[in-house]
């Protein structure tokens, strides 16, 4: 076996498509994953992220395109010959085998005999902190414990690549957050390439080196969590990753400056736009602040509105502000900031440079969960 530092395999998808009759599950998806990287495929259900995982695992054959794992094409190679670890959402432990036999199963298949096999099973169970449960049957374990055993089984044969399909989806929040940290630790210790599928953007931000955002069978954007949050390239990414306020209006250019008409006010933009363009303005909650009506200051953009909802969060407050055109803005403020009550007349204040201007994409209309 290779040393831990070089264990991970690179993955290269080039223009991969998958059709089911007339339904396009994947539409020319290209994705390069570095050896040892933690890549998350993020998107709503039906966006193609799980199909991509199944294509890499060998459960689904591609309709067209190329797929290399570790520099070699795996198109046409059956799943059992790909040597890729897979962790499923529903654990998929063999109910008729004990924990030890489950974890030993891939080693048995590879003809690894007993002193070695037992040692590796113990090591894998140690890594997921399940060493004392070897003699139990899966039905005697909790969901979180079963998933840790499934993880041990998927890494015990030292695969250069580990795929995880919403592995924490069936667990409660506390357990999920703790297991996220465990998965991060195991990734660090193994040096294996991890490809992780989730629809939970927070989970993606916690775990990943990079995130690929999927929508309707395509990748919208690939980048680090920070890039996706600060520099979303599409409205879909902006809405899917993190909270955001979206304002719409027509642009009007005069001389060097461009402004957008939003709710009857001219809002200055940092970028030049062509006259008559209808962009979307995306603002992150922490880039917005609130002031009493008329006290917003002159150097920044202000939009009048009324507090529609005030939520105390402990570490601060979250406000929903209803603007004159009935659009809603979400504002997060810190504890020391001024507090407002429902119905207060306020000004929404933000710097022109903090507003992301994006093309309006009607297809991106979806409800956030």
């Amino acid at each position, binding site marked *: 076996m290779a040393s831990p530092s070089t264990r991970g395999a690179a993955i290269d998808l080039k223009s991969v498509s998958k059709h089911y009759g007339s339904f396009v599950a994947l539409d020319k998806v290209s994705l390069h994953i570095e050896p040892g990287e933690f890549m998350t495929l993020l998107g709503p259900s039906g966006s193609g992220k799980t199909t991509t995982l199944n294509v890499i*695992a060998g459960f689904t054959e591609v309709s067209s395109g190329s797929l290399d794992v570790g520099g070699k094409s795996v198109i046409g190679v059956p799943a059992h010959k790909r040597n890729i670890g*897979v962790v*499923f959402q529903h654990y998929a432990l*063999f109910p*008729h085998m004990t924990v030890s036999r489950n974890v030993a199963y*891939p080693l048995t298949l590879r003809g690894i005999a007993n002193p070695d096999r037992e040692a590796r099973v113990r090591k894998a169970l140690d890594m997921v902190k399940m060493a004392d449960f070897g003699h139990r049957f899966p039905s005697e374990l909790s969901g979180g414990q079963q998933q840790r055993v499934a993880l041990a089984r998927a890494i015990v044969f030292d695969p250069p690549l580990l795929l995880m399909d919403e592995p924490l989806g069936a667990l409660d929040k506390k357990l999920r957050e703790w297991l996220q940290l465990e998965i991060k630790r195991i990734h660090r210790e193994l040096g294996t390439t991890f490809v992780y599928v989730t629809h939970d953007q927070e989970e993606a931000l916690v775990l990943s080196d990079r995130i690929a955002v999927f929508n309707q069978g395509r990748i919208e954007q690939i980048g680090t969590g920070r890039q996706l949050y600060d520099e979303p390239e599409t409205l879909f990414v902006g809405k899917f990753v993190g909270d955001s306020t979206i304002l719409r209006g027509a642009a009007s250019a005069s001389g060097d400056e461009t402004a957008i008409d939003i709710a009857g006010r001219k809002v200055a933009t940092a970028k030049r736009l062509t006259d008559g363009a209808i962009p979307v303005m995306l603002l992150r909650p922490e880039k917005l602040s609130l002031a009493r009506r008329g006290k917003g200051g002159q150097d920044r953009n202000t939009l009048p509105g009324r507090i529609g909802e005030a939520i105390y969060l402990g570490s601060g407050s979250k406000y929903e502000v209803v603007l004159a055109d009935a659009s809603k803005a979400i504002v997060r403020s810190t504890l020391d900031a001024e507090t407002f009550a429902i119905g207060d007349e306020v000004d929404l204040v933000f710097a022109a440079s903090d507003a992301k201007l994006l093309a309006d994409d009607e297809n991106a209309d979806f409800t956030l969960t």
Partner: protein
Amino acid sequence: MTAGATDSRTAVPAVVADDRRRWFRGQAFWLVAPALLLLVVCLGLPLAIVTLRSFSEPQWGLQNYAWFFGAPVNLTVLQRTFAISAWVTLVCLIAGYPYAYLMTAVGPKMRLILILCVLVPFWVSGVVRTLAWVILLQDSGVINSVIRAAGLGPVKLIRTQTGVVIGMAQVLLPFMILPLYSVMKTIDLRLMQAARSLGASPARAFAQVYLPLSLPGVYAGAIIVFILALGFYITPALLGGPRSTMLSTLIQNQVLSLLNWGRGGAMGVVLLIATFVLLALAAPLTRQPHKTGSRR
């Protein structure tokens, strides 16, 4: 208690449900009494009389059993009865296993059709179905016409053990398929995907994951089919010849033709005991070690 009070709007309060359960438990005997009575009067009593007469006719003693075990022909028939039943079980298993698997793999519409194909024969009397087999299996029947047309020559099917096995297997097949299906539909097919990802070829994934998980259904179906086959009467009587006689035919012969209730009863008791012994031997197989003592 408090839980019962807070849930009272949506569900039966726990206290009330508990009370109801306690009431049922107290009255349980009277609720099962009709079924017990039926069992005693319609099964226990006749069985007791048959057993009694096997010892008492024509006089008290073991003469009927001595006769049974003393006549080689009886032992041959007993042995054949078990052999035919074993063959029928095997044929049902081989035909029923893929069929039951198919039922779990197809969509709901196809599944309905497959279930109907299993159940429709239940609605047709066994005699009619057996007579249909007489037509199919006879020397100038459909099956032999096809075989002859294929140039494989006529094959003797009717009045042979093969004919009996074919006919019985067809009648008993649903008793194999239904238990198999009920177990197979609980098997998570994603386990096969998991096995493949771990390096198992489809054949190994089946042998090491699917097959072991389906075994409870195999045992249940096999036991039901085997026991029903042991006591089968109409099909072997109509499809079999003198060299494929089963015990039930001998019993019928003793009781109805020779009016010898003692000997007929003795044969029945032997068959019953043999069945019980078999059930006792098979019982440990149907117990699943991994399902006991699990989460509660």
